[in-house]
């Protein structure tokens, strides 16, 4: 019996020995969990811009931007060092609802403590404060934010600064007489870096411009823009964008490439890439400005006596173009065949609108375009086609590389003109847009002609048709309530968009024509148009009203608060602005949403409602 008692006592002691350590271990585990939970509460702080070029005497604003996510910031304090030789702090202003409750200042050092003493929550992305700085001397001025500490409601610990507890803004200060540097180097704080790459595929009239976008923080889409100019004095920040591509946020790096055609032969162009993270807080980062020179056209009296070392391979490229010379976008299949006239070997491609054959053996070639039902096709340009440029009514050209050993490429354009359907009626349409080579100076800002080189050279047009009494008869053309659609191409000589539109099944008659593009109100063209099957009627040039960028619900064809809200969101690069809306909000189509676009939109509000036929 005593032996049994001892066993029970030993068992109890054993259970206690096991249970207590387990209990202690679990308590420690719970403490670790709480610590992990608290340190996972982080915020991002950024200096915007993190880099900039200033001239001596210039002033600018530098924002301290906070992304608090869903947390409600209660307090925010930091210390700031700055180089007094180069920079002077002219002002400090809080922006987000945080008030300055403590401020100390010493030579080159300032400390601020901000607190939210109002009921307004400080959450999401906010500009906490704005510094007004002045450049006083040539050199590199820096602003260093350090010892950043912040608290939030309901979180009983100092928040972790995800972007690092030390942030540096670097500002290159130049003499007021020197030319600004045209490139900027992204700091380590910037979530995106860009690199302009060397131009490739350079011909007399085209080149491929590329840049590399990389990001160490793929949290938002990146708007990558490539621009070019013939002005060698412009920095990347002043070169108009000619191409926009949204690099998706799932991508950490991507090469953005833009095949630019229509360039002038023998001309030097300057180009660069820039990138902006679509997160409302990141500054635009500019790539280095590089240059290339298009090849010169051969002279009318070529001398081929000296051909020391012709390249062994040649390249033939070209483009399918519409009747106006713009890229051919009709939904029909096309084909190109080249034939080596020495070997009779052939190659084909169905690429559209641009096509090319690379690394061909040096020989003479015949380029033939496939016939397309409903269109007449004729070669319009054939650079370096020195031999029989117009075979088969223009559907074939021959290229002589044998007698022209200095040339290793050729460009061939084929233009497609739609054959009028005897049962269809067409209208020639031309429209102008405010801000596209028009003077909006009377409405505020803007230069004499604003943007003469819009990015979107091809625009889709929607057309409503009214009868002579104004009744809506669009359905007689389309068979349903949808508008008639067509494509318009930008004509750089008249600064207007032009195109030929098929009115489909519309009977002969006298009609009113209502036109709009994707960011304009409908506008009735002046007068009446006599439509006859098998013929093309001309519609007078119509000046459209831009600003209808929200196409949803009752906001369609009406300038409303919805349009303005979407514009503001795109201006601030906020989440509700889709890439498509951003294109529509760029009313002068120069790649930048700015006060000129706002000015154009304000003119739209003076009109408010678009024209439309009676329903």
């Amino acid at each position, binding site marked *: 019996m005593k032996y049994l008692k001892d066993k029970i006592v030993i068992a109890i002691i054993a259970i206690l020995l096991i*249970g207590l350590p387990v209990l202690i271990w679990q308590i420690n585990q719970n403490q670790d969990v709480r610590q992990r939970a608290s340190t996972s509460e982080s915020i991002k702080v950024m200096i915007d811009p993190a880099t900039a070029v200033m001239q001596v005497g210039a002033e600018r604003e530098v924002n301290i931007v906070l992304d608090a996510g869903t947390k409600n910031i209660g307090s925010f304090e930091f210390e700031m060092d700055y180089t007094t030789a180069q920079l002077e702090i002219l002002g400090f202003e809080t922006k987000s609802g945080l008030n300055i409750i403590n401020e100390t200042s010493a030579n080159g050092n300032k400390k601020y403590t901000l607190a939210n003493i109002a009921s307004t929550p400080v959450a999401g992305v906010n500009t906490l404060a704005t510094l007004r700085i002045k450049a006083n001397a040539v050199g590199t001025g820096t602003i260093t934010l350090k010892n950043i500490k912040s608290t939030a409601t309901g979180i009983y610990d100092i928040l972790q600064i995800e972007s690092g507890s030390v942030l540096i803004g670097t500002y290159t200060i130049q003499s007021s007489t020197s030319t600004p540097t045209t490139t900027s180097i992204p700091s380590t704080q910037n979530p995106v870096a860009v690199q302009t790459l060397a131009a490739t595929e350079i011909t007399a009239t085209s080149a491929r411009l590329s840049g590399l976008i990389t990001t160490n923080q793929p949290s938002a889409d990146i708007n990558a823009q490539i621009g070019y100019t013939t002005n060698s004095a412009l920095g990347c920040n002043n070169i108009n964008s000619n191409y926009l591509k949204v690099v998706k946020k799932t991508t950490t790096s991507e090469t953005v490439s833009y095949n630019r055609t229509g360039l002038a032969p023998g001309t030097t162009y300057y180009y660069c890439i820039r990138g902006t993270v679509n997160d409302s807080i990141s500054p635009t980062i500019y790539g280095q400005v590089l240059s290339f020179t298009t090849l010169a056209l051969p002279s009318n009296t070529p001398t081929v006596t000296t051909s020391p070392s012709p390249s062994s391979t040649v390249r033939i490229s070209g483009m399918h173009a519409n009747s106006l010379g713009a890229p051919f976008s009709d939904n029909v299949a096309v084909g190109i065949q080249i034939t080596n006239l020495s070997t009779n070997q052939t190659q084909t491609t169905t690429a559209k609108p641009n096509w090319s054959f690379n690394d061909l053996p040096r020989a003479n070639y015949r380029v033939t375009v496939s016939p397309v039902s409903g269109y007449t096709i004729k070669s319009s340009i054939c650079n370096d086609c020195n031999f029989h440029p117009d075979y088969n009514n223009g559907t074939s050209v021959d290229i002589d590389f044998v007698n022209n050993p200095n040339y290793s490429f050729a460009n061939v354009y084929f233009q497609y003109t739609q054959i009028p359907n005897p049962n269809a009626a067409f209208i020639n349409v031309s429209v102008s847009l405010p801000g596209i080579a028009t003077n909006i100076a009377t409405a505020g800002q803007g230069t004499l002609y604003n943007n003469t080189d819009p990015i979107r050279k091809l625009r889709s047009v929607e057309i409503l048709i009214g009868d002579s009494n104004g009744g809506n008869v669009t359905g007689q053309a389309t068979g349903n309530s949808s508008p008639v659609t067509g494509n318009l191409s930008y004509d750089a000589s008249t600064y207007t968009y032009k195109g030929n539109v098929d009115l489909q099944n519309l009977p002969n008659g006298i009609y009113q024509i209502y036109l709009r593009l994707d960011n304009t109100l409908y506008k009735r063209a002046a007068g009446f148009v006599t439509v006859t099957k098998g013929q093309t009627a001309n519609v007078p040039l119509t000046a459209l009203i831009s600003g209808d960028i929200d196409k949803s619900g009752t906001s369609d064809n009406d300038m409303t608060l919805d349009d303005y809200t979407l514009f503001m969101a795109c201006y601030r690069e906020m989440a509700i602005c889709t890439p498509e809306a951003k294109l529509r909000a760029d009313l002068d189509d120069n790649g930048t949403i700015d006060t000129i676009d706002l000015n154009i939109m304000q003119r739209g509000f003076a009109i408010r409602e678009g024209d439309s036929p009676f329903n």
Partner: protein
Amino acid sequence: MPKKTTILIVVLLLFTAGLVYIAVRTEQQNPNQIDEETISEEELTDLVPTINPQTQISFSPSVIDTGTNPQISQSVNVAANTNGQTISGIQLELSYDPAVLTNITIEPAENNLFGPNPAVLINSVDPNLGRISFAITLPSLDSDEVVGSSNIATITFSTLQNKVQNTQITVLPKTTVRSLKSTNSLLQNAMPLNINFSSPSAQQIIISPTLTPSDSQPL
């Protein structure tokens, strides 16, 4: 073994078993709690930015009695209460009976929800249709959104001399309240203005005979 010792041992055993059970159960639950807090930023930004509407629009006062002299110009404020939501603008689309009401104007209210210098995008009164359109928003593209309860517009009107019938200024469905953070309207509800004639029990009205119609300043 004494009875007390046995009881003590049983209590200790139960206590220890309870602690072990709690420890094991807590260990199983905590990882799930942490997982719920670690939604990736990418997943968050993929969410459709819509917000539950909470903003209310009303007239102040909500009932006007024109009394015995309906020809006197009268004014009424349009108020908005965002109920804690931040907003960037409001567009009013109001309807009235042009056979009863006349000389209608609308202008930004004093002590405005959108500050002392709001931007007025639309200020239009169509006396044929009986339609008032008014859009007011932040002073500039960079302004912070606003929150709170305050007036946004003041409407002045008169009644036609030969018309003495109760009427309303109603709020049309096109009326919207917008924020830069959402794709939907934040308008929860809007109440009409009731205009009664010669009702002795009506609320006191605000009379401002010196107010004259004034054009707004479109942007």
